[in-house]
């Protein structure tokens, strides 16, 4: 058993729903108790879908458990086929139905529907949403694209073709990433054979083997299917995820090398403003901003590269909630001299952020909660995301336009360069002070409701600090001096000073101690 306040990922059948809801003509019959239909609102509300997800639930209740839940499932499958006439059906069980062991796959087979019906085995007590999406997509691809027909040779002068794999319903900016990367590939002279699962039909999946190669946009979702396509249909995969200017250039180079075209045209057409915006002198204030990054592995790793190479930030923490990609995150963190935080425990992430006192958090909706409480600026870079992260405007994360979006959304929450200086110079200004938050976000953007929250909360304090607190005291003027330090680094300064004092056996911290500690830690 695991104590959980918030979860980063839903259960695996929600992953299956994301695939089914993304596709056209695929229906999901889910053996599940009453109440599991809540998952519909993820799609209709968070993503504002204008259709119900193509899911039929058996919604059994206690009184059904004594009777024939298997018959209930068969009726649901039969009725769903009759009503929705899908081209393919996936069937499975949610966590509770898994326990009653009705075998939806066998039952659906017994119904004898005239369409492909795929049983999904998604172990709810071991796996989570992303895994469920990956497994569902893999099973669909395997079943529908199984035909071993050899790929027709591309006619002389014909454009190479690829599949775009991974975008789903409820994906973080998937809709716009697909548009951006499709455009980029066409400019490179590559046509899109099939995009899947988003907007794909069962027939589209049957056509997957016609492509020359696959582009894996979201390895969390398409990795398994792409590996199978590579093995069985001999389709190589492009593994670079084009988030950020550098990664997009690498992506172009990888595709160009694979299909034997010149990358020049696509590279010349680099329409990202990021490089110049970042070199523009007003961006100097971004230098060395301490940033904490957490999300799904793909987005977190990509964000770390953009943060260091394209924004000039210092990454002070990097982690991901999906253990399946822990190795990749660990090596990315190592390259930055960090130890990766691999956890799906929200409280652990909160502790790490409180400890590190970053100046910016790049995370998911969960980290937005944390950052709001700790009053640290935050931008969302990964699922799970909120309704606000499904913007009306075109807002990709990938490609050159995606890099523009990253620059804007990551810098927007920050206090701008000169304002930062003014805050430090005129600390006591009644109207413009650091507790009021960046002035361009309007006063009250960071309400000074919980000033104590800036400090490390007791639950998160490390043992040495707790021990130190018992024997250490701050002289009144030293405390006042501490309060003149901008709030976003004040906690860090406090901890450093206390550690410095404790090491030297100082029990009363004076102004001198504060500045000695500052000089010590700035090396």
């Amino acid at each position: 058993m695991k104590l959980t306040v918030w979860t980063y990922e839903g259960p695996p059948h929600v992953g299956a729903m994301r695939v089914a809801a993304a596709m056209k003509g695929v229906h999901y019959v889910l053996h599940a108790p009453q109440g599991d239909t809540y998952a519909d609102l993820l799609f209709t509300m968070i993503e504002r879908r204008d259709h119900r997800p193509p899911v039929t639930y058996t919604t059994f209740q206690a009184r059904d458990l004594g009777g024939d839940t298997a018959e209930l499932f068969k009726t649901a499958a039969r009725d769903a086929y009759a009503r929705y006439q899908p081209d393919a059906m996936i069937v499975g069980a949610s966590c509770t139905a898994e326990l009653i062991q009705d075998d939806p796959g066998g039952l659906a087979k017994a119904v004898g529907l005239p369409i492909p019906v795929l049983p999904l085995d998604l172990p709810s007590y071991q796996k989570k949403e992303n895994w469920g999406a990956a497994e569902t997509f893999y099973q669909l691809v395997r079943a529908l694209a199984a035909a071993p027909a050899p790929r027709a040779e591309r006619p002389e002068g014909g454009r190479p073709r690829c599949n775009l794999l991974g975008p789903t319903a409820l994906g973080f900016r998937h809709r716009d990433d697909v548009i951006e990367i499709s455009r980029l590939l066409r400019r490179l002279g590559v046509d899109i054979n099939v995009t899947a699962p988003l907007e794909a039909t069962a027939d589209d999946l049957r056509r997957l083997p016609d492509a020359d190669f696959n582009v894996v946009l979201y390895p969390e979702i398409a990795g398994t299917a792409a590996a199978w396509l590579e093995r069985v249909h001999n389709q190589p995969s492009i593994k670079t995820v084009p988030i950020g200017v550098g990664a997009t250039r690498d992506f172009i180079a990888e595709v160009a090398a694979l299909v034997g075209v010149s990358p020049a045209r696509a590279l010349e057409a680099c329409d990202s403003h990021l490089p110049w915006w970042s070199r523009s002198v007003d961006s100097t204030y971004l230098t060395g901003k301490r940033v904490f990054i957490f999300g799904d592995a793909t987005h977190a790793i990509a964000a770390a590269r953009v943060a260091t190479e394209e924004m000039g930030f210092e990454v002070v923490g990097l982690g991901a909630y999906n253990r399946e990609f822990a190795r990749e995150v660990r090596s990315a963190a190592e390259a930055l001299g960090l130890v990766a935080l691999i956890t799906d425990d929200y409280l652990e992430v909160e502790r790490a952020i409180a400890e590190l006192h970053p100046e910016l958090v790049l995370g998911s909706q969960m980290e937005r909660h944390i950052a709001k409480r700790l009053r640290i600026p935050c931008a969302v870079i990964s699922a799970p995301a909120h309704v606000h992260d499904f913007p009306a405007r075109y807002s990709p994360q990938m490609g050159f336009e995606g890099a523009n979006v990253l620059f804007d959304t990551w810098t927007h929450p920050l206090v701008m360069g000169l304002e930062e200086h003014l805050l430090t110079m005129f600390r006591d200004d009644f109207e413009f002070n650091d507790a009021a938050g960046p002035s361009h976000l309007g006063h009250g953007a960071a309400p000074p409701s919980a000033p104590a929250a800036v400090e490390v909360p007791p639950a998160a304090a490390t043992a040495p600090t707790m021990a130190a607190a018992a024997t250490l005291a701050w002289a009144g003027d030293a405390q006042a001096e501490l309060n003149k330090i901008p709030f976003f680094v004040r906690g860090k300064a406090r901890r450093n000073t206390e550690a410095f004092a404790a090491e030297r056996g100082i029990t009363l911290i004076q102004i001198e101690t504060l500045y000695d500690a500052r000089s010590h830690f700035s090396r």
Partner: protein
Amino acid sequence: MTVVLDTLTRGTTPAPPRGQTSVLRERGQREVFCGLTGIVWLHRKIQDAFFLVVGSRTCAHLIQSAAGVMVFAEPRFATAIMEERDLAGLADANEELDRVVDELLARRPEIRMLFLVGSCPSEVIKLDLSRAAQRLGRKHGPALKVINYSGSGIDTTFTQGEDACLAALLAEAPRAPADAEPSLLVVGALPDIVEDQFRRLFGELGVGPVAFFPPRRSGDIPPIGPATRVLLAQPFLGDTAQVLERRGAVRLPSLFPFGAEGTTAWLKAAADAWGIDPARFDRVVAPGQERARRALERHRATLEGKRLFLFPDSQLEPPLARFLSRELGMIPIEIGTPYLNRALLAEELAALPADVTISEGQDVDRQLDRCREARPDMVVCGLGLANPLEAEGITTKWSIELVFSPVHGFDQAADLAALFARPLRRQSLLRV
């Protein structure tokens, strides 16, 4: 799937019988929340209580999806997520639960009441949470009370979770002596501001002492006995009402306090039980009635004559339809409810228009067919259906707001009406 048509003989009080209304009973896909969802408001109501769901990742995901939009602070609820190894043997699951509770109490030592909330998977594997509650109560008591109830989808639909919670919580209520002075117990989680309004009204009426249940602090559970008179503030509290009646408490039947009419009838039930002079009653309620009627006028123009179709959600549907039809002139076509408690709703059913269809249970696909065919002016439904129906050109009011807003009593009557008027006003404003 099974469709049973039966008829319901209308209640005889307070209105005379006016014929019969058909009740459509359906079984099929039920597009409703499970009882765990009630934790979203219950954890705010009882401020020193904590709700620990013993369930799966799905349970945790449900609560945060239903609540995640609204709750930003660390909530007073969590899920003990069962994993593969917990399912291997029950002894293990109990030890694991004890460990999780220890962890929780270390983090939140200020908790005075812990609810262990059963879920679908914990029910199916027959994890005995009542024994676990006793064991943990002995271990951590008396500073901590441990209570269990089931909020599982196989046992409860949405607001039935509150019913199950309150029924379980009543076990903590001390027994009032048989010769105690009569006291009034208002049952059902109400917003604090509404409680305060009702408390003032009862005071002016001379009805009292009054206690509200659930209390704001877990230690403030009032004694209950034969001298207790009960007003239900919510229509979905069937089990709680039964437990109260077994304890000898007497329920005062009435309309529910939605709208001026409902609130008047509800207060009147208590005033009559206390033998309050009718002139005094009229004098006390007149200002509230007047304010409600005046404020409702504004919305009547928007809502009058509009045809209304309610999908089942919270069991509030019959009283809401009564309010909307009688005080705002809306025309209910179908009133869906997940469960119809005829005894508690006798007065409400009698006050509904004669030709309305009441449907109990759900087959969501068939109900959507009926709804599309009826082309109502407004549909009241859950969040899973609202946007899809809007996309078809049908104006909706999403129902979860009705359990998240102060809607009871005179001074909220117009707010309640506004919740329905706003989508229609919006339709008339938009030119895109």
